[in-house]
């Protein structure tokens, strides 16, 4: 049986994995997580090596992983690319929905916990309707026209600006 040599550049997938993994590992290292960075380097080096070996095989999967192939394999590559793009798009949409829902819940919890933890906050801050809507409005402290009077004997109330409720 004649062995048909695998055509095309088999280094394409390995190079993408090595470059992308290297960028990710570098970013993780800069971010301060050195152990995770070393783990990522090890993972992507192994993945790039496997991709290089796999891309050299005389198979359809190998042809998809390298640049080249005949018309049927290029069509398979296009279909696989389109399918993976669709999957990534759907994943991104699902992730955005989950992220939006989590932010909504987190903000609502923040508002409710802020109202319970700080009883002296303004009333608009601890409104249950605001907590339910997940909207957190902060009021700026009014500037004092003059330095607030400070009376050690009077205590905390004297520190406030006049007219601040």
């Amino acid at each position, binding site marked *: 049986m004649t062995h048909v040599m695998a055509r095309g550049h088999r280094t394409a997938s390995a190079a993408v994995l090595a470059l992308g993994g290297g960028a990710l590992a570098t970013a993780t290292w800069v971010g301060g997580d050195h152990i995770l960075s070393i783990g990522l380097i090890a993972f992507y080096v192994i993945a790039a090596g496997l991709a290089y070996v796999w891309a050299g095989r005389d198979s359809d999967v190998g042809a998809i992983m390298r640049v080249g*192939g005949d018309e049927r394999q290029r069509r398979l590559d296009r279909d696989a690319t389109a399918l993976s793009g669709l999957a990534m798009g759907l994943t991104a949409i699902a992730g955005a929905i989950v992220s939006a829902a989590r932010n909504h819940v987190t903000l609502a919890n923040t508002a409710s916990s802020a109202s319970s933890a700080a009883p002296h906050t303004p009333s608009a801050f601890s409104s249950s309707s605001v907590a339910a809507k997940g909207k957190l409005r902060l009021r700026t402290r009014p500037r004092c026209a003059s330095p607030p009077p400070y009376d050690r004997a009077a205590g905390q109330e004297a520190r406030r600006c006049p007219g601040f409720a």
Partner: protein
Amino acid sequence: MGELRAARGLSQGELASALGVSRQTINSIENGRYLPSLPLALDIARNFGETVEAIFIPDQEET
């Protein structure tokens, strides 16, 4: 197409090498899983010394 190839004593790999495609593609064409493009169909017909319609017979349902 498989009968023509076998009659000429060619393996799938040898025919694939002659046509510049992969062995898997020849196998897919012979098993009816892949319909070749017009240039490839012309190359196959030229390789066997036949016409395209002599090698690729359309299904009755598709016509």
